[in-house]
């Protein structure tokens, strides 16, 4: 199995040969099976427009779950529902075995769900280090007054968090840009810093909204490798949206296919690839 045999910094050859890969799922069927996140009958409307229609699927612990579909299919809306930016009108959200009420995004972040954005949302004026450090906010305990005084526990805590952040920086191979304001970095590196910030929270569910959009082949390879490594090394559960089908087929354990706000397919990459509804959606058969 590639998964276990791969060295820490070894390059994954799979994502490069887009589309032709056999799919990771074929080699690693099944995960631990525990459900981390479950959406039940989610419907999300904006006025008269229905972005998501009665969609049900789950995300299992330790898996890479891909959400694919044509533009406007409602993929990003699904992530926004999971992370609390949108609140569905109908349906239930179950997280870690409990039904979740209506929570604000920052509360959901504290529950261990981290994310990246389709259009990079970094703190542009801050350095790489500070950006990733903000990812630790949910894990910091010291109150403001103790921090002001900078004594004892607060200082120790700051040091611990710094160490965690340095590890992530090593992991993502961005030591050279630690002190650079992220606004100056090239696009590919910004995406990587954003991943780093999400990782810093040590999330139990990591949401990646088009982590490879706008990247060249080499950057895509790097990003694929990091995503696989995160999943392997830390066992992080990942849900991602991606347009590059080759990448999706190589990365994902299971795939949800959406079109016009509806789920039209769900299963391993191989299942999905042979699904007629999916093929129709992608090849543009007329909708009724």
């Amino acid at each position: 199995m590639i998964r276990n045999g791969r060295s820490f910094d070894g390059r994954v050859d799979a994502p490069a040969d887009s589309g032709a890969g056999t799919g990771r799922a074929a080699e690693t069927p099944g995960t631990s099976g525990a459900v981390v996140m479950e959406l039940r009958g989610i419907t999300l409307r904006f006025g008269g427009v229905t972005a998501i229609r009665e969609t049900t699927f789950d995300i299992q612990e330790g898996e890479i779950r891909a959400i694919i579909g044509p533009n406007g299919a409602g993929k990003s809306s699904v992530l926004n529902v999971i992370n609390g930016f949108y609140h569905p009108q109908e349906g239930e959200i179950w997280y870690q075995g409990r039904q979740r009420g209506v929570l604000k995004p920052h509360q959901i972040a504290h529950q261990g769900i981290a994310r990246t954005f389709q259009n990079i949302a970094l703190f542009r004026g801050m350095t790489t280090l500070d950006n990733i450090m903000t990812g630790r906010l949910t894990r910091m305990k010291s109150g403001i007054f103790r921090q002001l005084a900078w004594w004892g526990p607060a200082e120790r805590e700051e040091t611990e968090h710094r160490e965690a952040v340095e590890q992530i920086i090593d992991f993502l191979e961005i030591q050279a840009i630690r002190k650079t304001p992220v606004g100056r970095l090239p696009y590919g590196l910004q995406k990587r810093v954003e991943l780093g910030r999400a990782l810093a929270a040590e999330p139990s569910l990591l949401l990646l909204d088009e982590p490879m959009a706008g990247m060249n082949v080499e950057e895509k390879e790097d990003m694929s490798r990091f995503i696989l490594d995160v999943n392997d090394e830390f066992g992080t559960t990942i849900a991602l949206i991606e347009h590059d089908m080759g990448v999706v087929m190589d990365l994902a354990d299971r795939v949800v296919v959406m079109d016009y706000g509806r789920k039209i397919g769900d299963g391993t990459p191989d299942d999905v690839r042979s699904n007629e509804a999916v093929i129709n959606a992608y090849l543009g058969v007329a909708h009724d």
Partner: protein
Amino acid sequence: MSPGFFYGIEVVLNGLMTGVMYSLVALGFVLIFKASGIFNYAQGVMALFAALTLVGFQDGQIPFSHLINAVFGTKIHHFGWHLPAILAVLFALGVMILFAWLVEKLILKHLVNQEPIILFMATIGLAYFMEGFGDLMWGADIKTLDVGMPQGGNLWIEESTAFLGGEDFYGFYLDNLDIWASVVALVLVVSLVLLSQYTKIGRALRAVADDHQAALSVGISLRVIWVIVWSVAGFVALVAGIMWGSKSGVQFSLSLIALKALPVLMLGGFTSIPGAIIGGLIIGVGEKLFEFLLGAPFLGGATENWFAYMLALVFLVFRPQGLFGEKIIERV
């Protein structure tokens, strides 16, 4: 050395002191701008309102007494007690924190993710509302504010520097109040810089300033941050109100000092706390020195009224981000 030289030095010193007072107001702007990208037009009025509230508490004024009198035909005006200054300051601070909470609840909450210009206009509305509300609550008459800070010239400095010049030089004249203001401003700036650079709250503040959605996604509550920022800005407004109010009385014109903060911000940069201080000092010294060297002898005087704005204009042309503002980074 000629007495003119020493007089020049005294002008510079007084310029520095005036500059500190400008900086105090500019500081409030920077805080809110940094954390929310809002240019808070109401900062000057907040200083006025804070000073009014302070005097009101200190003198035991009955809030809204004019309104009550007009409606019920009563003739109430004071409770009849006087609060110690420190207690009054604490109460006034409490009012400013309450004010911050209300601003978040009634205005900012409903304008999340709106364009900065919309938020700016909201603060204009807020400024006019507070101006009227302050009048209604505490009355429109000019009040004296005395929280026990020493006033008048500092004799010690004057006497101990008198030997420097000749017979016509009596030593440097520095106002005690200005010296106090400088010390307070210094403490304020150092603590604010430490807060924003080295604490969890500070990091959260800077994060919110950069990107609301991203800030939410790492677990920062925008509402909490905004209340904190406006509370701190309210505190700075209170300090500025105390200083200016002690100097020139608590009256409506206090809110106009905000205008002088604008050129300070253009020099120092809208996003830099030390910049606000340095900018204030440059403006303070610049306008006093310009008046002394060129204005009074050659231009007929009264250049202090426009010098700061002209300097700001020059900066806008050559260095729009100010001396210390964050670089405006734009990838093409």
